[in-house]
């Protein structure tokens, strides 16, 4: 039984003026964590004695590319952000493959099982979230896999042998990505979604229809209003049964029905939590020495599951710790991404409320959809599929609430500048 090692300050743990530096421990090494570290080391290089500890065996990588990796479009190397040399060069001690198991607030210690004990003056929790498994029979059968990290990708690829039939549960962004990736591998793939449209939180019906069409064009069968009742099989997945009795044969079930913020560690440490770890505008938890950001944090009642707010939070916290008075006031939710190559953008309201006017452009054959929601001449929502060129302008208008000048410019793009008449 190994003795936990008390990790004390490294030899250069003094600032140039000789005063001992504050010890900053960052728990988690995901995308939010890395962005925080980047900004922190830029904003106040050398101020903190930084240790970052991640549960996954690899340093932070681009989770957004998991489906591309799954689909074989890129290799694992392409998902990397920063090499270990970067951490070293910036004086960051990086420990990977080591989940923090407890926080001793009284003594200011972060404990990694029985291997590490990390004293801290400040602690940042960027522990992300956990994929949800449906509370249905058979979810523990071999062959039922979530889609969240590199390990999941490896597991899926291993199961996705020739002639395998895959079912992806969940028509959110990740589910779509997983299904598209599987289909690209040549796997017979069916996507199940419990709602009557894909990505219902970001897309209205026509937009979701286009996305569905794009998925189908990529070889994915899509079944909507599909309520999974059970996964069945003898020792491994063999079939999936829907609530309406439909039986779908399956060798692999990928579950992508959402995530739950990882709050167990914070709860155990007695920090205030709700769905996520409660933070204020400085990203501070109920313990002012401890901060949280990313998908594990709950700010003003909202838990975000997207990269953009996580980055904004990382930004704010880094500025705050650098003494620049960074504050985070929430993110105007917008989604701007490519689903297996199809650009999609959504910001503000999605469905048309009674007191707003919709301006729509819909060319299903061209894979093009645009909706602008206007209330008294002001943009309150936008959904784009196929071409999202004006997304920045839309986001700015939604955030500012300024009157929209030329709706056509927003809808169709500014006409190319005309050459001056000779």
């Amino acid at each position, binding site marked *: 039984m190994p003795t936990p090692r008390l990790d004390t300050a490294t030899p250069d743990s003094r600032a140039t003026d000789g005063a001992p530096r504050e010890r900053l421990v960052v728990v988690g090494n995901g995308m939010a964590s890395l962005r925080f570290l980047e900004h922190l080391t830029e904003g106040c290089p050398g101020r903190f004695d930084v240790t970052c500890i991640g549960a996954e065996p690899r340093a932070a990588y681009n989770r957004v590319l998991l489906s591309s990796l799954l689909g074989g479009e890129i290799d694992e190397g392409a998902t990397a952000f920063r090499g270990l040399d970067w951490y070293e060069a910036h004086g960051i001690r990086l420990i990977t493959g080591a989940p923090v198991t407890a926080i001793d607030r009284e003594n200011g210690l972060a404990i990694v099982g029985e291997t590490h004990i990390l004293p801290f003056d400040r602690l940042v929790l960027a522990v992300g979230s956990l994929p949800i498994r449906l509370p249905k029979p058979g979810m523990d059968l071999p062959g039922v896999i979530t889609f969240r990290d590199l390990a999941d990708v490896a597991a899926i690829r291993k199961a996705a042998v020739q002639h395998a039939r895959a079912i992806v549960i969940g028509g959110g962004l990740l589910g779509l990505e997983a299904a598209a990736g599987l289909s690209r591998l040549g796997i017979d793939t069916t996507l199940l979604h419990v709602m009557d449209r894909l990505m219902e939180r970001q897309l209205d019906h026509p937009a979701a229809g286009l996305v569905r069409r794009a998925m189908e064009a990529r070889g994915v069968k899509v079944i909507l209003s599909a309520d999974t009742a059970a996964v069945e099989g003898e020792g491994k997945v063999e079939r999936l049964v829907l609530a309406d009795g439909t039986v779908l044969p399956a060798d692999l079930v990928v579950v992508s029905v959402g995530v739950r913020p990882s709050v167990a560690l914070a709860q155990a440490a007695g920090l205030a939590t709700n769905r996520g770890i409660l933070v204020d505008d400085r990203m501070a938890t109920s313990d002012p020495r401890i901060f949280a950001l990313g998908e594990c944090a709950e700010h003003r009642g909202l838990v975000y599951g997207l990269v953009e707010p996580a980055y904004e939070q990382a930004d704010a916290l880094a500025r705050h710790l650098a003494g620049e008075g960074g504050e985070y006031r929430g993110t105007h939710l917008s989604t701007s991404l490519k689903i297996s190559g199809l650009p999609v953008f959504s910001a503000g309201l999605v469905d048309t409320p009674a007191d707003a006017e919709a301006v729509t452009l819909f*060319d299903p054959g061209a894979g093009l959809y645009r909706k602008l929601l*206007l209330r008294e001449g002001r943009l309150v929502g936008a959904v784009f599929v196929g071409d999202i060129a004006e997304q920045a302008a839309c986001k700015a208008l939604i955030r500012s609430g300024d009157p929209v000048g030329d709706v*056509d410019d927003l809808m169709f793009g500014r006409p190319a500048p005309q050459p001056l008449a*000779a």
Partner: protein
Amino acid sequence: MTAEVRTTCPYCGVGCGVLATPDGKGGAAIAGDAEHPANYGRLCSKGSALGETLSLDDRLLHPQLNGERVSWDAALGTVAAELQRIAGAHGPESVAFYLSGQLLTEDYYVANKLAKGFVGTPHVETNSRLCMSSAVAAHRRAFGSDTVPGCYEDLDEADLIVLVGSNTAWCHPVLFRRMADAKAKRGTKFVVIDPRRTQTGQEADLFLGLKPGSDVALFSGLLVHLTENGFSDRAFVEEHTAGLDGALDRARQIAPSLQATAAATGLAEADIAAFYDLFARTRRVVTAFSMGVNQSVQGTDKGNAIINCHLVTGRIGGVGQGPFSLTGQPNAMGGREVGGLSNMLAAHMHFAPEEVDRVRRYWAAPRIITGEGMKAVALFEAVRAGRIKALWVMGTNPIVSMPRADHVREAIRGLDLLVVSDIMANADTAREKARTTVLLPAQGWGEKDGTVTNSERRISRQRRFLPIPGEARPDWAVLAEVGRRLGHGKAFDWPSVAAVFREHAGLSAYENGGTRDFDLGGLTDIADSAYAASGPVQWPLPKRGGPKPRLFADGRFYTFDRRARFVAVQPPGLAEAAGGDHPFVLNTGRVRDHWHTMTRTGKSQRLSAHRAVPFVEIHPEDAAARGLSEGGIARVSTVHGSAELEVMVTDAVATGQLFMPMHWNAAYASAARVGALVRGVPDPVSGQPELKATPAAIEAVAYRARGFVLSRTEVPMPEGWWWAKAAIPGGWGVQFATQDGSREVALALRGLIQTGGLELAEYADHARGRYRCAVYDGSRLVASIAVAPSDARPDWEAAKALFAADEPEAAERRALLSGRAATEAAGPVVCACHGVGLDVIAATIRAGAGSVEAVGAACKAGTNCGSCIPEIRKLLTVETAKAA
């Protein structure tokens, strides 16, 4: 490989030779016949596009009785029985025929013979009454015969061409090209006399924009000027004319001085003086006149006022000299030769007892008529009054073209028997119903076979080069069959169309001996083979002595004393003065690329691009005063009816005047039938109605939304909408206006376009009243819709280009929905022959093309028929001015 066939263009009276090479699929390649002396290979935009008008869409292909398809036997059985019954019960004068300048001479001949010799009715009228009957009457009063003295060569040889009431550049483009060549070659001067500054007027050396109906004053003043200043040809006047004194007296009353003429015509004295001086000092002068003269309550006097000036100077019958009536229809002249007008009997013979007897004997006619019948306006009044019970309409659309056309429509519905011989099932008249209605499918251009005569008395062959569609038959054969069924077997027993022609030629020569101008004695024995092969030939063509290009060079006319007559004309005036509730004078006429009521040219996308919607021209000051703006919709109304037209603001029309085109029928526009508006008071001599000067009012019509529909097949517009339909490349285009909002428009149009199985791409901004839609069959664009508030009316040029391209690319698909051009649009078509748009021509000029020739070399515009050259010249001026 099919051989080319020599035939004759079926449009205006120029009568151009056409080479048609059938493609074996119902179409044909069209080219000008370089050997035809009317055009020497040239064709105008309409002639060039003949190949686009040959489709069988909307053709009448089978006989119908009261809306049901029947056999020819049943149809003609009904016609014969009903004619017999009605003539028996109400007298033969209760039967009337209304014919057309579109008919071939042989058709005309048989109809005239059947009616006037065998049914026994004098009521054989023709749409030529609306076209040039005033010229006929003026000729007869002056020459004693309906003789066009000169020929086209005179236009090449003249030093001055005076164009009166004639937009020759648009309506007789090939002749205008000849005139332009003369100008280039010998410096021929053009004087254009017209209330409206037409494209022809813009090409004039001197344009005289006189007050409507004041022509008589201008030419009376000229007669006075010529006689008082020593320009009269005393010898000619003394030896070959009579009546100068009376005519001169009257002229002096009307226009005693320049000041008086200026007051009467509204022209500047200096301009009048310049014209008079030019006329007086130029020996080779041709005065060509058309509908501006003829379609008038004093059309005959206008014609004689012109002829008086040629008689007094002896400028008639010589090379490059003479009055010249330019006819509007391909065979108006043939109809006149046959006698297919109610005030003629046959073959330039009238109702002198010996003439009646001569025709009776030639025809062996049991019921020869002895006097004139009713002229068109009176004839339809009689239909309305129930005195005419049976009417046979052939090849014309009186519900659009007759004045007070709504009355005509009502009248026709009250007939016991309506027979319509037509090629189009959707002609307005063919869609009407009387108590008994018989529709007879006629053969169209390229299907029928016979002869036509052009404005210079030249007889040319129209030849068949297409298969006969459906059960269509030659009109002459149908008429002959009815004649036989009425018991006149021998008189109507021709084995061929050539046999009909021989009989017609025979009548012209019968007991002629030089007493009648119209003499085809040289052709009375023409063999079928010679008829089949014959080329164009001018009359008179007596048995001895070849064809004569000009008449009256010898000073011998066809009056009893062989002297020409000066005519004392009435003071100028319109039938009805504008004022009160109807302060405008409504002028009417043709546009460049359409023909008559559009039943044929409406099928051609090239011809429909130049003017796609019916419009009204109004002077900028009048427009401003009435809140009318370019492209808006206005209601033009007269006491008789109203039309809704797109406003075209232009100083080509003078203040106080409006101009609307005569073409749009009810199949092409919701409310643009010109005939519904005009009063049409007839000229007391010729009976030709005044169609170009009806008191009218104009007001803006505020529609909530404007838009367009492009579709592969025709889409009917909902009731109550304003609309105008035009053929476009790849299908049909409709522009519309409506009081509905964009949401309702979207619903209505999506319902009308069969969208089942098709994919819709849509842009909707109903809050701002905007909606656009593209309908795809796979990747092929099959329909496109756009609607926007009236003040933001969508332009359809870009959409039309994409529609023509069939399968738009992604950026173009977006452009269809955005209404923003993906690529540069070509602009409204200027050159219809080569489909070159205004923007392209303007760009060509900006790129350095500084002349009409350079523009043509760069983008081909204007290099075919040349009828757009005036517009190109105007663009040159505009663009050059911009650059300066």
